[in-house]
């Protein structure tokens, strides 16, 4: 889990300019820089968490993001990681069913914190279809990697879908119809996380 989080941090850092550019087009242009700052702080803590269970690692990740991101992604991803961590408390390994449960808890946390649902041009438009695909795959008996590959594809399609809709949540909702045609930065960062998870399990 520590290696996966480091890989996510590296990916976010690599894409921070692009994420910021996407955010600049429709909102306040802080997403990439904020996320890179938050995950940079997470990386600084990870080595100290060696040997801890997955739940504790994810919980610390969430709390660190809340304290360091500074934009909406802080409370949203922070709550998501904390909820996922609570679900995986005490576990040192994660199977497909665990991943489904963790993702369900994470999405529930984001919906609760952001009072958002799908179709509002947010990270949920990547995460919810990904969760549905993952759950369907695991329930059909697929191994975790195959099911997660479908989830990543669903998230990618979800990011594409955000280009076609108007933002009704978050800062981007201030520009209304003018947000159509632009890809949502939150959905994009969520896709990067899932893609990186797939590449590292």
């Amino acid at each position: 889990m520590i290696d996966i989080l480091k890989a996510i941090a590296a990916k976010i850092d690599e894409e921070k300019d692009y994420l910021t550019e996407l955010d600049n087009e429709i909102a306040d242009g802080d997403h990439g820089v904020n996320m890179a700052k938050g995950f940079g702080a997470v990386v600084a803590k990870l080595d100290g968490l060696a040997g801890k269970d997955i739940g504790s690692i994810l919980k610390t990740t969430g709390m660190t993001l809340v304290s360091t991101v500074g934009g909406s992604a802080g409370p949203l991803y922070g709550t998501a990681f904390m909820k996922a961590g609570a679900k995986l408390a005490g576990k040192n390994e994660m199977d497909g069913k665990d991943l489904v449960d963790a993702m369900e808890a994470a999405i529930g946390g984001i919906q609760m914190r952001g009072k958002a649902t799908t179709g509002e041009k947010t990270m949920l438009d990547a995460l919810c279809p990904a969760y549905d695909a993952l759950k369907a795959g695991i329930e059909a008996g697929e191994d975790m990697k195959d099911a997660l590959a479908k989830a990543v594809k669903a998230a990618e399609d979800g990011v594409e879908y955000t280009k076609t809709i108007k933002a009704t949540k978050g800062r981007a909702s201030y520009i209304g119809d003018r947000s159509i045609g632009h890809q949502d930065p939150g959905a994009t960062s969520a896709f990067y996380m899932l893609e990186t998870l797939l590449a590292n399990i």
Partner: protein
Amino acid sequence: MVGVVIVSHSQTLAEGVVELAKLMASDAKIVAAGGLDDGSPGTSFEKIYNAVEEVYSDDGVAVLMDMGSAVMTTEMVIEAMEGRKILMLDGPVVEGGVVVALEASLGTPLEELQEKVDEARDTKKLDN
């Protein structure tokens, strides 16, 4: 006296609201929690947490926030301080901040402050 915390993405905006409120209510317990630790734009869990602590008493604390993460981060601070008397107020940060500081300094209880903010929001500035 109820304490008041102004949460904004901008440090200068939050401090400005406090400055304005103090003109009307110099003895109000009102503090700013704007921007990140280094002063750059954003909302900081620690800054909000520390601000609430600074003005906290048994009378409670009212918090006015600007938008987005200011609201969500404040919610997380309140959850972390579970059991304390802290209330988020919904309304304009500038007018609401001034009214709440004034009312709090006059002894209005926490439970009645949302009503005062609603009045501030509904007060027209122009005749038309």
